[in-house]
């Protein structure tokens, strides 16, 4: 049981990092991104490919970060042309196209089979310590991201993002350029997602096109909406709740003896139901964003 708990906590850390990124982009900057998983997926693939080429860990993670940053700038520049509804659809389509590329360009990504046999981190440590060391690394990264975001949000840049979210023309009047704000927010949101994606690749020693399926994006959205859009503490809580439900769903297969199709359906359905119930009855999440009062 304790090794399952370590596994669960590691996943919570990794997915909470991705969800924090989504929260910065969607919650603070107001950019409704439905293809957010593309950043994590790109990071995961970059790490996988780099480690296949024999690159060391820091270089592989740097490649992951660089790839996601390029994608973030490209999608944010697209936002200059489109209104927000149209942009949401466009990001969904971009993520789907990237997944199609991952599925079909076997020479680069291993196709549907993905890239397996990636050398795990801390391979020299004995069994329980290896997982614990990875958990510590993931938790450290999560803490760094959380702290970094707290600084960003309370800086001038963070306040400018909120002004842009509420009233874009007011931000323009203050002399901010919305395109530049959106671009910087997107890059800041994409980096932790790519880092988490890269770490996930090392954690499960595998990367395949399944990391980029749209339902993963909605799982991230569920984490953010359950916790509270625009509230980083809420996102941590949401990550814990959603990932627990998500990780316990496969046990249904053993307990009830249902087919794997049904177990997959239960996972999807649970995410959908949680998201919908939360939107209908707690639209601001469990820990809503605290709006600063005028002093």
């Amino acid at each position, binding site marked *: 049981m304790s090794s399952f708990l370590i596994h669960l906590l590691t996943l919570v850390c990794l997915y909470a990092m991705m969800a924090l990124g989504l929260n910065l982009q969607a919650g603070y900057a107001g950019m*409704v991104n*439905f293809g957010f998983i593309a950043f994590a997926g790109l990071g995961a693939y970059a790490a996988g490919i780099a480690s296949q080429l024999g690159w060391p860990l820091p270089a592989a993670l740097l490649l992951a970060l660089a790839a996601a940053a390029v994608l973030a700038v490209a999608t944010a520049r*697209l936002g200059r*042309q*489109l*209104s*927000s*509804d*149209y942009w*949401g*659809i*466009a990001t*969904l*389509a*971009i993520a*789907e*196209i990237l997944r*199609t590329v991952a*599925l*079909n360009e076997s020479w680069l990504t291993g196709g549907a089979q993905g890239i397996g046999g990636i050398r795990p981190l801390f391979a020299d440590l004995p069994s329980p310590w290896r997982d614990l060391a990875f958990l510590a690394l993931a938790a450290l990264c999560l803490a760094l991201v959380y702290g970094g975001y707290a600084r960003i949000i309370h800086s001038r840049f963070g306040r400018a993002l909120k002004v842009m979210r509420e009233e874009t023309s007011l931000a323009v009047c203050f002399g901010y350029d919305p395109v530049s704000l959106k671009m910087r927010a997107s890059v800041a949101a994409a980096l932790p997602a790519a880092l988490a994606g890269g770490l996930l690749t090392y954690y499960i020693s595998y990367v395949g096109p399944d990391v980029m399926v*749209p*339902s993963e994006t*909605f799982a991230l*959205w*569920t984490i953010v*909406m359950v916790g509270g859009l625009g509230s980083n503490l809420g996102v941590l809580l949401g990550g814990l709740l959603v990932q627990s439900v998500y990780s316990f769903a496969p046990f249904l297969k053993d307990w009830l003896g249902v*087919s794997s*199709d*049904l177990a*997959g*359906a*239960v*996972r*999807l*359905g649970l*995410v*959908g*139901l949680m*998201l*919908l119930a939360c*939107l*209908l009855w707690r*639209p601001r999440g469990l820990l809503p964003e605290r709006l600063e009062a005028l002093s």
Partner: protein
Amino acid sequence: MLQFLLDVLIRTSDLLLVSVGLSTLYSLIRFPNVAHVQYAMLGAFLSLAGQRAGLPLGLAAALSCVLVGCLAVLLNIFVFMRLLRSGSAVAMIGSLAVSLIAVALVLSTAGSRPLQYTQDISAPLTLDGVAVSSAQAGSIACGALTLLIFSVLLYRTNLGRSMRALASNRALALASGIDANRVTNLITFASGVLAALGGTMLGLTESVHVNLGNNLLIPVFSAAILGGLGNPLGAAAGALLIALAETLVINVDFGSLVGRSMQFFPVAYVSAVSFLILLVTLMVRPYGIFDREVRRV
């Protein structure tokens, strides 16, 4: 050449049924309902269930259309209208959640294997040397007929006039005594019926499977956005354009360009093509090709 034209028409009528409903509904509820493509998937499966229960296919399809139409209305009243109060982005996320639940329901009851309708095997019609199966001919006829009925509904009846009034100036339409809820419900019902019909047609010409809705997502939204979301006839033209591009890309031999004898475009990227067309169009015309609304900046 005739084969090419037929392929375009079949694809157009598949996309058209779903994208016209999506676009019309957008003009009333003002958020892109992502779950709309799943109505097509549900419609295809309900027709299949009806047929398995012993109904003739026509009756099963009609029943499934009515059921999906009612489902669309119920979802609209109890879910989307409530979510819209918190904004269009929230409603859109809600529609994604609804489509996840729809996929999960179908996956758990029907499994992930593709299924087929039982059809009488009849000799295909032959037109000038090109074979057309009766399902394909039916699909084209259905698309054309629906477009005709729908444009009559929109431009010749009171319901259509009320709908267009609501879409162009909601406050004025309400002030002149139009019952907004009734119009919205009727149009939602009609768009659900169209989506179910489109899904059933797609199931007839291809197969019925759980990813039917997800595969429609990019081409249908590309068609609807190309035509300008909220413009039904524009969506039809958008569907034609997307179908034309997809078929062109599949059939053209790029061998002479890359110096090989045969080089076709990889089929897996066909949906990417429709999306690329969409992107390029939106760069030039940010609200679609056929948008005539005047907007103040």
